[in-house]
């Protein structure tokens, strides 16, 4: 090569020829990536019966997976533990996961098989519900706005309940879905913001109960069992995704008190998780899967949520979420019922694409890790840079980027559907929590952690 292009022989014609060749090569290479066949096309993805699995159902039912030449089977899993283990062992190729799960594998809090996420499946969408009995004791302390409770409701109003439980020698037991999981950290955040200590994890001392110094006791309950468990009196409340909060309202068994966007607006809630070696072994398959999921998310938020009723119908089938259509419709179509009859519009409650695009932001990863540190899942203090390093290990917007570029290149989606991908650093601007006003800056996680009265400190 160097002989051909040596200075002596170079001429304008040659240069033009070389340039043309380059362009051709480039075009060919784009062509090649855009249509590279999947290495593995028969895939099995797991999910938990929650409304935010809907991008998977849409990608399947709308034929987006088929467009990518993938034959996908979707399979409901019994609980998050089963789901996580089956992804780690390779029985599932990928799954609907709790946003902190990949971070758990990166930081060593959860198993030893690295799991990554190239795509965020949903934002916001969790809520905390308490039983009627607990709500009756809380309500006198809740500030009112007219005759309705003023939001956000502080966990400080739980204190009379705690006292009455203490008098009768009972523990306040609350349900969440998985220790290194969205709902656990959300519930802890809410309790601690109201001055109630939910207890620490101390894995370095071999204590993984998460109840060191606890005033309220949290334990794992699979999402679909939340309502029956509260009905049986085993728990007094819980934090979970939909439709299991609206289910409690529909059955008259409990009252949701706060939704997760009040705690952290636009926070990632569920991600699509795969093993890291799945991506290295099957890059085309991974990118094609993400393409299908991006299209599904966009479809869900398109036409100003106009497609949502169709999506609700889709996932009310027994093989997906299976709850009654009207219960699912409550939250998916932008309203949320708190006390019976207290129906409020929360258009951002289940967000999939609008303003967030399904991008696995590093800042989202860091928010979750601040909570993992605060409650002891990250045993030792770490530097701000360490948090960013871990985020980059588990959250992979680079894969998302490849998928988005292919969608634009093949004309399925427009560049205007996405943010300016060339400029994107995947870190969102600092924001304050509506619940307690704590400001989260992804570049200064330790400052955020140190600002909390309850929980471990950053440094």
């Amino acid at each position: 090569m160097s002989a051909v292009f040596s200075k002596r022989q170079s001429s304008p014609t040659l240069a033009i020829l070389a340039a043309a060749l380059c362009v051709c090569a480039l075009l060919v290479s784009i062509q090649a990536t855009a249509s590279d066949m999947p290495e593995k096309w028969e895939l099995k993805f797991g999910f938990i019966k929650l409304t935010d699995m809907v991008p998977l159902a849409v990608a399947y039912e709308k034929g987006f997976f088929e467009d990518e030449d993938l034959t996908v089977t979707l399979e409901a899993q019994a609980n998050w533990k089963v789901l996580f283990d089956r992804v780690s062992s390779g029985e599932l190729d990928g799954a609907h996961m709790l946003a902190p799960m990949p971070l758990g594998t990166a930081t060593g809090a959860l198993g030893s098989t690295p799991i990554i996420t190239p795509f965020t499946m949903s934002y916001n969408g969790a809520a905390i519900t308490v039983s009627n009995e607990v709500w009756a004791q809380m309500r006198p302390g809740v500030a009112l706005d007219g005759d309705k409770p003023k939001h956000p409701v502080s966990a400080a109003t739980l204190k009379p309940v705690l006292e009455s439980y203490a008098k009768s020698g009972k523990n306040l037991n609350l349900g969440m879905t998985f220790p290194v999981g969205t709902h656990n950290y959300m519930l802890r955040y809410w309790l601690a913001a109201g001055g109630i200590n939910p207890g620490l994890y101390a894995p370095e001392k071999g204590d993984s109960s998460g109840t060191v110094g606890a005033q309220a006791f949290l334990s794992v309950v699979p999402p679909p069992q939340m309502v029956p468990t509260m009905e049986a009196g085993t728990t007094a409340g819980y934090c979970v995704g939909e439709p299991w909060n609206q289910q409690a309202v529909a059955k008259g068994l409990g009252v949701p008190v706060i939704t997760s966007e009040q705690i952290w607006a636009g926070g990632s809630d569920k991600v699509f998780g795969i093993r890291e070696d799945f991506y290295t072994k099957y890059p085309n398959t991974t990118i094609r899967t993400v393409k299908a999921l991006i299209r599904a998310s966009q479809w869900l938020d398109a036409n100003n949520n106009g497609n949502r009723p169709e999506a609700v119908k889709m996932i009310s089938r027994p093989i997906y979420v299976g709850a009654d259509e009207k219960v699912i419709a409550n939250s998916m179509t932008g309203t949320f019922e708190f006390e019976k009859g207290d129906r409020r519009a929360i258009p951002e409650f289940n967000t999939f694409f609008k303003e967030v695009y399904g991008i696995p932001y590093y800042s989202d990863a860091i928010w979750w890790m601040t909570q993992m540190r605060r409650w002891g899942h990250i045993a030792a203090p770490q530097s701000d840079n360490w948090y960013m390093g871990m985020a980059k290990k588990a959250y992979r917007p680079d894969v998302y980027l490849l998928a988005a570029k292919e969608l634009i290149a093949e004309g399925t989606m427009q560049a205007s559907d996405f943010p300016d991908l060339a400029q994107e650093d995947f870190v969102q601007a600092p924001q304050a929590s509506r619940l307690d006003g704590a400001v989260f800056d992804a570049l200064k996680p330790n400052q955020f952690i140190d600002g909390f009265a309850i929980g471990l400190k950053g440094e």
Partner: protein
Amino acid sequence: MKQTSFMLVADRAIRNLGLPLIGITVFLSVWQFTSGRIDTSLGKFPGPAMVWEQAGGLLQEFRDEKIREVDFHARQEKRNAKLKIQRPDTAIQMRSYSGAPTFPQQIATSLKTVFTGFTLAAVIAIPLGIVIGLSSAVYKAINPIIQLFKPVSPLAWLPLVTIVVSSVYINVIDGMPKSYVTSAFVVMLCCLWPTVINTAVGVTSVSSDWVNVSKVLRLNFFRHIRYIIFPAAVPMIFTGLRLSLSTAWMVLIAAEMLSQNPGLGKFVWDEFQNGNSNSLGRIMVAVLTIGLIGYALDRGMLFLQQHFSWDKQALLR
């Protein structure tokens, strides 16, 4: 004479058909009556009528799924035709439909799993039972272990089996996913014991006259077992196998619920998780199906027992 024979037939018809019919009718009306009075958080407990309706719904779902499958193949052919034009060099793959398993498919998976576990158990248990029955020394050595494991519930085995299978069974064979192997193994572990014990009892209680016949004829060890011990113990072996099969069927449902093996157990669990207004009715359909299949399996074993047993006169129930 004629009259009495007619009376006899009528009497038999009443006994064999009439009485069960009366039993079923009473059961259905008690069911209908009480179900209407049990209010659950998922609505009223399903009565016979609602269960019948849900059974129809499940059948309809099966038909819908068949239509989806046809559509899937049509789309695939279209895609492949397009691919052939665009990229003539790529190998065209014919893919099988990836839809969710329907109720009949779940029944099929359950039957396959139960037979795998049961066959494995029988292959181990019958020889083991014979050895134990023949030698009181072996019996003394093994008995404590049998007594220890016999009462263990499948749910206790399941986590262990799951972990072991997922770390030992690495190269997954097509059509034999890990969850299937896990459930089959749990079934085997739990239904081993009735066959072992009954076979052993059958072997020990072989009449000493027959054993002496064998001695007189100087049969070697294998012929002794083949012509004397085994035929003599067949009724007891089958009693054991029947008990094992019904245990296997019961265990399987529990194992499937937890191991996520797509079968009737998973169907029940998924419906429980769905918690919608039809869930209870659909679970009842599964309960009745499980019962009917269990009954059929037992009758099947009984038929085999009658077929293989040398004593055709023995009363079996």
